[in-house]
């Protein structure tokens, strides 16, 4: 029952774990999303111009008959539309009637013999010039049918555009909804929790002022409802509140303008003749409001581009004042408006309805996205952040399931082995009893039915207890909320699979054993068996086959180049080669069975009778017991070694995974801390900030200058826009997780080379693209697109594959002093910092101190490695490998102890007559303990030695296979302390069980067995 309980427990635990983790993966995947979906109006000003097209003809045109096509262009605005272009072609199967086009009734000439509405190869339309405000222009032309056609079947192709309405508008397109109408429609869609309108526009410096004092910096003006602020608590109102009558200003704005609630600010908007005066009703910290500052540009998608001077105004101010003003301003040629107001609906999906696996959640999110597309016009852009995240999570889920499968499968096999072992034990215990029953006439089917019934009762009860145990274990590791959030159907399926699998296995073993034994002679069944029979795996040479498979697998793994590293922080799913995951299993199973073969060989080789001397009592008995029962010994060793190997494997994977994951995170973040100044350069002086940071207790600090596509790398034959980082090599070496960087030389040597003026490192990928080699001279346009851009020549001193702090990749690394002298740019994009205490709590304490002290003066974003691991990485971090491993380890230890218990008591059970006889013949208690313990200890020690070695080899192979999950190369870690403790624990358990078994033997009533025949 113990075997079945633990077997069912582990299987249930693994299955519940897999299903509960899938839901956790969904939660984890979507947790960091600042916005689930964004529906962005591609034209925030609404449509300025409209085109209607109709055919004037009978319902059915016969071949040769003509129809009049009429196009009406309406200017919907109060401003003139310039360079209005109308394009159209007669709908097939109609052909243009030459010379039939007229504008407002005035006939115009064809162009090159073709319709003026479809000119040249590009089929460009007719430029009708400026169309006055609120006016209508009518264009007509004739078209003749080539074949008979119904007019309603004609597909009209007319389109219009203007300088203000650059995108072509098709004829008869209805007016797109306003942002408010769109938001209202979206709120009706099932599965959407809320849909909030949001406007944003960046105003030029000095656009906002108070008391005559202007803000000397860019200002972000946000239009939102008070509901929006409630829905996004990342907008941290520190004073006052947001009311529809006033504005909220950022703490930086309030600080610079010395504002308090109740005071007024003035906002100057292009297109308005005078500034708008607004009362300040609240002050807020916006530095965590990602949804307001994440880039909507494809080139910098989701980059956090903080604007310290931010003001939220009531949405009506935007819809009634600012947007129309901008529309007016945009119509003025040369107004120089760089951007139109961003108009979007921010959507939050009902996340409770996504509480399932990423795949299922993705289907639901995709359905919501489809509904959004259906209610939106073609002039909106849907940014579906949640589906993108879930797509990655769904791929991660697949990877996670593979990992679970291969981390959990050995445990399940061990549990099954335990079940088989216990079933065999039960069969063994019934052997004599059944033989006696056969003696009295019981037939084979009767005995099999009895075995089956008994199995169903006992194994069924044990399996139920085991299922509860497994559920409890999964709940303990994953947390009650995660397990309870798992769909009950999946939990029920997990239970059914685990219970049925275990009961069926026991049933098969017992009835099979019964079938086997009932075929043997009754007399032989009633005998005491000196040794077990040769096992199937040995007869079939399964061990050699598995070892061969493992060897081939390891060889293939060594020969095949390592798969492309995909960091979990890159928003991609890591993939694991399914085939290679089999190799650790083959190492485990094949290695252990082969070890059993060796143990048997050694024991049997020395076990031939005819020894000249007996030796001392215990030693003489012990040696012969081991040597003359080689299969019993080998089977027990294999059973325990399988468990020990499994536990050692899990422990080694656990420590290696933990260590590598930490290194991976440090590498991705760059160091223990990444501190990003959020303010403008004017607000942040590097020297003073550095002083603040150093006083907060960090042990090393290094500044980094970096932005995407900030340079152009010009190679000997080609050039490309590149991401360049300028670093300070000495301090970078002290601070960054540099030892993990992958260079074509040692990391230290690389940094020494980079310290030379004019030295540059190029990424191996980019060097390959541009045919650049080490030793080449390349030109780099630094600070691309700024007033300080400068072309500079660099010597390529090395190549790198991965660079700390840049998990998404980096193209060029140069010395920051070279960069500064060339561009005169002093700005720091972020600092990497190392803390004296590298534990999560130590790092978090310093991060908190920095935020409290330096953060008061400078807007900063401080990210710790542990926070980065928990929040910013993909759903793969929800693949709770550690949890699964620890749960497996717990069961492995329990199964190990149960296996030892069984080995000791099986030994006692099978050989009780022998021990009781020795006791009757006067063997002392201590000698009896020594004999029983000695036999058990021989098994345990041999199994421990073999199991630990095989487990570590298995883990080593597993770690190789798991390489794609990490950014850095995993450093295999042997948890020596744990393994010593495990070994000591198992030995102690053996001693305890042997002593308990001896107590059973020395009971006076035990001698009754000696009288049995």
């Amino acid at each position, binding site marked *: 029952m113990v075997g079945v309980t633990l077997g069912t427990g582990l299987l249930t635990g693994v299955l519940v774990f897999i299903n509960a983790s899938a839901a956790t993966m969904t939660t984890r995947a979507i947790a960091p999303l600042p916005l689930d979906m964004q529906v962005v109006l591609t034209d925030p000003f609404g449509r300025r111009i409209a085109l209607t097209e109709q055919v004037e003809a009978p319902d059915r045109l016969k071949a040769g008959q003509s129809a009049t096509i009429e196009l009406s262009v309406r200017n919907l605005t109060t401003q003139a539309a310039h360079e209005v272009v109308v394009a159209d072609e007669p709908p097939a199967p109609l052909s243009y009637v030459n010379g039939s086009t007229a504008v407002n009734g005035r006939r115009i000439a064809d162009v090159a013999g073709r319709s003026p509405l479809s000119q040249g190869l590009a089929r460009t339309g007719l430029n009708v010039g400026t169309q006055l405000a609120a006016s209508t222009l009518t264009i007509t032309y004739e078209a003749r049918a080539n074949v008979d056609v119904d007019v309603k079947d004609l597909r009209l192709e007319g389109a219009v555009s203007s300088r203000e309405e650059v995108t072509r508008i098709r004829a008869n397109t209805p007016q797109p909804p306003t942002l408010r109408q769109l938001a209202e429609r979206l709120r009706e869609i099932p599965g959407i929790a809320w849909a909030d309108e949001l406007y944003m526009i960046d105003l030029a410096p000095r656009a906002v002022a108070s008391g005559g004092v202007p803000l000397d910096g860019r200002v972000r003006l946000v239009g939102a409802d008070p509901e929006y602020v409630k829905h996004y608590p990342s907008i941290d109102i520190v004073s006052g509140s947001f009311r529809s009558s006033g504005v909220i200003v950022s703490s930086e704005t309030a600080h610079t303008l010395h504002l308090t609630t109740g005071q007024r600010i003035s906002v100057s908007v292009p297109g308005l003749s005078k500034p708008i005066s607004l009362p300040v009703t609240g002050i807020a910290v916006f530095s965590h409001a990602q949804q307001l500052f994440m880039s909507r540009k494809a080139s910098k998608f989701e980059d956090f581009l903080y604007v310290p001077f931010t003001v939220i105004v009531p949405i009506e101010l935007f819809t009634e004042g600012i947007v129309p003003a901008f529309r007016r301003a945009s119509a003025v040629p040369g107004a120089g408006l760089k951007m139109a107001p961003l108009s979007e609906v921010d959507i939050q999906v009902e996340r409770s309805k996504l509480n399932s696996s990423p795949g299922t959640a993705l289907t639901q999110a995709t359905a919501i996205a489809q509904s959004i597309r259906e209610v939106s016009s073609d002039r909106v852009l849907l940014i579906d952040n949640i589906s993108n995240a879930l797509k990655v999570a769904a791929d991660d889920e697949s990877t996670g399931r593979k990992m679970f499968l291969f981390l959990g499968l050995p445990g399940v096999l061990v549990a099954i082995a335990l079940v088989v072992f216990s079933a065999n034990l039960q069969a063994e215990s019934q052997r004599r009893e059944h033989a006696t029953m056969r003696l009295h006439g019981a037939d084979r089917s009767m005995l099999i039915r009895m075995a089956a019934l008994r199995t169903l009762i006992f194994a069924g009860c044990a399996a139920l207890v085991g299922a509860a145990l497994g559920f409890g274990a999964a709940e303990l590791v994953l947390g009650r909320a995660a397990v309870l959030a798992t769909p009950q159907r999946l939990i029920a399926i997990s239970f059914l699979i685990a219970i049925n699998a275990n009961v069926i296995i026991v049933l098969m073993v017992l009835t099979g054993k019964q079938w086997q034994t009932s075929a043997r002679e009754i007399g032989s069944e009633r*005998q*005491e*068996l*000196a*040794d077990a029979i040769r096992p199937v795996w040995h007869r079939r040479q399964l061990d050699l086959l598995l070892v061969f498979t493992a060897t081939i697998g390891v060889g293939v793994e060594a020969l095949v180049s390592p798969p492309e590293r995909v960091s979990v922080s890159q928003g991609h799913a890591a993939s694991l080669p399914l085939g290679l995951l089999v190799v650790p299993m083959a190492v485990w199973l094949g290695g252990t069975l082969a070890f059993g073969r060796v143990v048997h060989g050694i024991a049997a080789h020395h076990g031939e*009778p*005819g*020894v*000249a*001397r*007996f*030796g*001392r*009592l215990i030693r*003489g*008995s012990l040696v*012969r*017991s081991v*040597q*003359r*029962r080689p299969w019993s010994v080998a089977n027990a060793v294999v059973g325990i070694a399988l468990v020990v190997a499994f536990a050692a494997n899990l422990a080694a994977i656990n420590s290696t995974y933990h260590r590598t994951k930490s290194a991976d995170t440090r590498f991705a973040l760059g160091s223990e801390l990444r501190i990003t100044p959020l303010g403008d350069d004017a607000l942040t002086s590097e020297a003073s900030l550095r002083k603040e940071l150093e006083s907060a207790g960090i042990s090393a600090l290094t500044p980094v200058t970096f932005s995407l596509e900030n340079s152009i790398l010009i190679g000997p034959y080609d050039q490309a826009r590149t991401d360049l980082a300028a670093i300070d090599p000495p301090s970078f070496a002290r601070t960054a997780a540099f030892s993990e960087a992958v260079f074509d030389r040692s990391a230290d040597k690389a940094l020494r080379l980079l310290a030379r003026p004019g030295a540059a490192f190029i990424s191996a990928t980019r060097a390959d693209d541009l045919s650049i080699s080490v030793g080449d001279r390349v030109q780099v346009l630094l600070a691309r697109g700024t007033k300080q851009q400068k072309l500079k020549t660099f010597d390529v001193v090395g190549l790198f594959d991965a660079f700390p702090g840049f998990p998404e990749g980096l193209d060029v690394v140069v010395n920051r002093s070279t960069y500064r002298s060339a561009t005169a740019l002093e700005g720091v994009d972020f600092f990497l910092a190392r803390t004296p205490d590298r534990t999560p709590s130590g790092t978090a304490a310093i991060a908190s101190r920095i935020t409290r002290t330096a953060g008061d003066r400078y807007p900063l974003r401080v990210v710790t490695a542990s926070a980065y691991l928990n929040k910013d990485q993909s759903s793969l971090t929800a693949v709770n490998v550690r949890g699964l491993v620890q749960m497996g380890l717990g069961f492995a230890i329990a199964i190990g102890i149960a296996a030892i218990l069984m080995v000791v008591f099986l030994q006692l059970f099978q*050989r009780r*007559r*022998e021990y009781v*006889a*020795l*006791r*009757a*013949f*006067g*063997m*002392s*208690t201590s*000698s009896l303990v020594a004999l029983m313990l000695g036999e058990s200890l021989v098994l345990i020690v041999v199994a421990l030695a073999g199991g630990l070695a095989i487990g570590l080899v298995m883990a080593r192979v597993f770690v190789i296979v798991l390489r794609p999950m990490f950014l850095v190369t995993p450093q295999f870690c042997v948890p020596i302390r744990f393994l010593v403790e495990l070994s000591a624990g198992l030995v102690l358990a053996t001693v305890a069980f042997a002593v308990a078994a001896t107590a059973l033997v*020395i009971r*006076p009533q035990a*001698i009754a067995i*000696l*009288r*049995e*025949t």
Partner: protein
Amino acid sequence: MNESPAITLDHVVKSYAAAGGTVVALDGVSLTFDAGTSVAVTGHSGCGKSTLLAVMGALEVPDSGRVRVAGQLLADMSASARARIRRADFGFIFQSDNLIPYLTAVENLAQQMALSGTAVDLSRCTEMLQRLGLSEHLHKLPDQLSGGQRQRVAMARALVHRPRYVLADEPTGSLDRASSLEAIEFLLAQQEETRATLVVVTHDPSVAARFATRVALSDGRIVAATTGHRPALNR
């Protein structure tokens, strides 16, 4: 011959818990076994014969009454002291051979010598087995021997360390008549040679007839005790 009492039982009571209540196996048994004598204990099944042997052999402790072995009161002895006296002074034979399955015939004897604390003398072990006609089977494991051969090895094992008391519980129960008598003759011959006290429990009258002293038990009580001349050994 040493006629001083070897084992004495004085109003020994021994009972067992059973499904239907308590079963009294020995009900106030008082007996004296002189040193160097051979005694047959007879009676029907369940009369307490085996319990008598277990109590005499320090395998079990009586509920009441006193058992003395060579003058020592067993009740005063610890379990380890009783084990010590068993391995040094007793030889046991049961109906089942109870041989150690992974030891050869000669090794089973050697183990008994090692257990009793005497120096292991393989030549004596070999000689004992040869005298029992097992010359060809010295290095065979028990499952390579017939039932009769195994029982003879068990007898040799009980005697190999020259015990002062040999207790045999239905030693011929699993043997045919000829083998039974042969085995009993061997035991009696050994007893005569070593002057050990031999107590044999049997329900076989022909076996009992080979003993001069016979004790009959019924329902845990002694119902008859006869002493006479032992028939001549059938050598």
